[in-house]
C-alpha cells in the first residue's frame, strides 16, 4: 500500500511539465494550440475602484444617465466610427471561425451598436451583411485582400502584431482549409498554412507611414485607419504608430487569443494587458495625442469590470475576442464526448487548431457548425455584451461618472505590488506606486 501523503511532486517538474516532455519526446515538434496564455499574470482583477464617498457624489443607478458611446478615428478620417458602446469585437478570421460564428458576431455587434472585425482570411459576405460597422484587417498574409472590400469596410486595421504571438504569423492547420477557405486565401486545400509574420511590402515605421497614406488614397481619406500591435515594446510601438499616421491604436496584451500558435509562443512572448494599457496611455500623453488618437485595449477582457478598469486607465474602448467566443458557446458543458474525442474536457478546451470544435464555433465542419445557429449565437453575445455594459455603468455611476469614459486613474487602486508597479497605481491603503520616486 502506497502512502500518498509521502508522495512529493516536484515543483520544477509538476505533472503538466512531465506530460509536455513526454509529448515532445513522442512527436518531436512544438505543441500548437488555440486560446490565449493560460499562465497567471497580473491583471485587472488586481485593481479595485474606490467608489464615491464624502468627497465625490455617486450617480443614482437606473435613474441618472451614464453614457457609453465613443467615436473612433477622429484624427484624419472624414468618416469616423460612432459606436454606442466602448466594447468592440476583435479580428477573428473566417477559417479559424466558421461562417455561423462570424455571422453571430456581426448580428450581435449590430444589435449593440458596435463594430466587428474581419481576420486573416478576408471578408465574407455573411459578415459584411450582418455587421453594420465592420473593420477590415490588412494583414501580413494579405489573404483575400482586395480594394472592393477595402471600400465597403467602415474602417481599416493594419495588423502589425497580435498579443498571443507578437512577432509571429498566423497558422491554420490543414483540417480547416476547406475548399471555401482555400479559395479565399488562394491556397491549396488541406495544407498546414503558415501566414507571414511581416508585411510583404513595408518594413518599419517610415514605410508604414507611406503604406497608410496609400490606403488613405485608395479609400479617399474616408476610413479611420487603426494600427494593431501585440504588447511588447509598447512605448515605442504606440509612438511609432502615431507618427505613422494611425487614427486609432489597438494594443493587444499577451492574454489575447489565437486560433493556432505554438504553446511556447503564447506563454512566453509579450507582456500582459495591464502594463500595456499604462504604457500605451503614457506614450499617447507624451505625444499630446491622448484622446486625439483613440486607444483600444484587448487581451483577456472578460467582463464589465475589466472594461471599466481599462477605460479608467485611459483606454477609449476595449475589444473582445476569446470572451465573445465563450459567449457563443466555447467550452460550454455540452457534447462532452466530442471534447473527449479531441483529448480534452469542457472548461479546458483550447483545440481551435483541430477544427473539431465541439460547440461549432471554431470549425469548418458542417455537422459541427450546425450546432451554432447564428440567431442563437447572436442572442447569447448580445446578452453578454449588455451585461458588460450594465456592469460598466454600475461601476462608473458608483464613481460618480455620467459617462464611462470619465472614469480616471484616480478612481483606481491596486491590490498587489506587482499590479501597482505595472499599472502605476497606488497600492491600496497607501500612496505608494512602486517604481515612482
Amino acid at each position, binding site marked *: 500500500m502506497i502512502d500518498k501523503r509521502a508522495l512529493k511532486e516536484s515543483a520544477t517538474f509538476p505533472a503538466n511539465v512531465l506530460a509536455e516532455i513526454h509529448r515532445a519526446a513522442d*512527436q*518531436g*515538434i512544438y505543441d*500548437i494550440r488555440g486560446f490565449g496564455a493560460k499562465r497567471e499574470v497580473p491583471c485587472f482583477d488586481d485593481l479595485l475602484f474606490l467608489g464615491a464617498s464624502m468627497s465625490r457624489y455617486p450617480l443614482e443607478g437606473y435613474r441618472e444617465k451614464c453614457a457609453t458611446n465613443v467615436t473612433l478615428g477622429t484624427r484624419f478620417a472624414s468618416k469616423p466610427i460612432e459606436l454606442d458602446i466602448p466594447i468592440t469585437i476583435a479580428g477573428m478570421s473566417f477559417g479559424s471561425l466558421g461562417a455561423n460564428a462570424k455571422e453571430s458576431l456581426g448580428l450581435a455587434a449590430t444589435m449593440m451598436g458596435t463594430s466587428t472585425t474581419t481576420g486573416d482570411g478576408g471578408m465574407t459576405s455573411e459578415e459584411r451583411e450582418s455587421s453594420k460597422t465592420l473593420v477590415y484587417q490588412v494583414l501580413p*498574409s*494579405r489573404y483575400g*485582400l*482586395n*480594394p*472592393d472590400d*477595402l471600400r465597403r469596410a467602415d474602417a481599416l486595421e493594419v495588423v502589425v502584431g497580435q498579443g498571443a504571438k507578437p512577432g509571429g504569423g498566423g497558422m491554420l*492547420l*490543414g483540417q480547416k482549409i476547406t475548399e471555401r477557405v482555400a479559395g479565399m*486565401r*488562394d*491556397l*491549396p486545400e488541406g*495544407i*498546414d498554412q*503558415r501566414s*507571414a509574420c511581416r508585411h*510583404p*511590402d*513595408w518594413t518599419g515605421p517610415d*514605410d508604414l507611414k*507611406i*503604406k497608410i*497614406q*496609400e490606403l488613405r*488614397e*485608395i*479609400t*479617399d*481619406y474616408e476610413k479611420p485607419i487603426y494600427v494593431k500591435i501585440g504588447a511588447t515594446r509598447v512605448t515605442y510601438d504606440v509612438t511609432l504608430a502615431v507618427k505613422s499616421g494611425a487614427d486609432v491604436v489597438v494594443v493587444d496584451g499577451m492574454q489575447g487569443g489565437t486560433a493556432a500558435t505554438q504553446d511556447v509562443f503564447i506563454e512566453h512572448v509579450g507582456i500582459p494587458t495591464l502594463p500595456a494599457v499604462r504604457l500605451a496611455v503614457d506614450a499617447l500623453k507624451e505625444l499630446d495625442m491622448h484622446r486625439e488618437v483613440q486607444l483600444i485595449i484587448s487581451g483577456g477582457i472578460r467582463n464589465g469590470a475589466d472594461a471599466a478598469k481599462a477605460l479608467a486607465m485611459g483606454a477609449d474602448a476595449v475589444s473582445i475576442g476569446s470572451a465573445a467566443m465563450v459567449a457563443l458557446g466555447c467550452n460550454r458543458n455540452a457534447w462532452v464526448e466530442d471534447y473527449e474525442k479531441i483529448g480534452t474536457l469542457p472548461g479546458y478546451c483550447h483545440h481551435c487548431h483541430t477544427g473539431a470544435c465541439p460547440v461549432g464555433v471554431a470549425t469548418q465542419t458542417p455537422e459541427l457548425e450546425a450546432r451554432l445557429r447564428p440567431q442563437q449565437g447572436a442572442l447569447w453575445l448580445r446578452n453578454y455584451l449588455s451585461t458588460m455594459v450594465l456592469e460598466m455603468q454600475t461601476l462608473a455611476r458608483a464613481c460618480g461618472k455620467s459617462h464611462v469614459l470619465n472614469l480616471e486613474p484616480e478612481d483606481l487602486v491596486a491590490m498587489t505590488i506587482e499590479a501597482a508597479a505595472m499599472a502605476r497605481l497606488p497600492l491600496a491603503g497607501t500612496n505608494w506606486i512602486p517604481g515612482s520616486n
Partner: protein
Amino acid sequence: MSNFDLDTTAVRKLNQYLHQTPADKVVVDKPGGRHSIAVGLDASVDITINGHVGYYCGGMNKLATIRIHGNAGPGVAENMMSGTMDISGSASQYAGASAHGGTLIIRGDASSRCGISMKGVDIIVAGSVGHMSAFMAQTGNLVICGDAGDHLGDSLYEAVIYIRGSVGELGADCIEKEMTAEHVQKLAALLHTAGLDHVLTDFRRYGSARKLYHFDIDHADEY
C-alpha cells in the same frame, strides 16, 4: 485625354480624379518619385507616367493599364487585381507584392522580394531579380529573363517560376521541375504579352517541392 503635372497638382487630386470618371487616356508628368500615384483604380483607363515613381504606384489596380516611363519605387503594383503595369526601367523591392491578378512587366531589373506573396499575378522581368524573390508566392507566374539572387522561391506554394539565367541558392522547398509542353506554351504566351523574344528552351522551371505543406518533424530544419 487628361494631363496632370505633379509638380503643380497634388497626388490626392490625381487619385481623386482617377476614382471618379476618368478620361480614356491620362498622362502624368513630373511624378518626381512621389508615392501612391494612380492607386486604387477601378476603370479600364490608360495611364502614362513620364518619369520615376515612389512607393506603391498602381497599388491595388483593377482594370487600368499603367505605363511608367522610368523606374518604380518599392511595392509597385502591390496587391494588383487585374489590368497591366508596364515599367520601362527597374523596380525596387517587393514589386507585385501579394498581387492577385493582372500583368506586371518590368523591362529593367527588379530588386529583392519581387513577387513576394503573389496570389495570381503574372510578372515578367526582362532583367534580373534580387534575393528572396517569389517568397511565399501562392499562385501566378514569375518570368525572369536574367538571373535570380539567393533564396528564390523560398516557402513557395503553387506559383510557377520560369528563369533564363543563373539562380543563386534556392529557397526552402523550391526545386527545379520539368518544363512540359504545357509550361513551354504558357511561357511563350507570357513572353509574347511583354513583347519579349527569347529561345524558350533557355528557360528552366521552378516550383514547390510541397514538403512544407504539412508540419513534419523530418522537415524541421526547413522551418
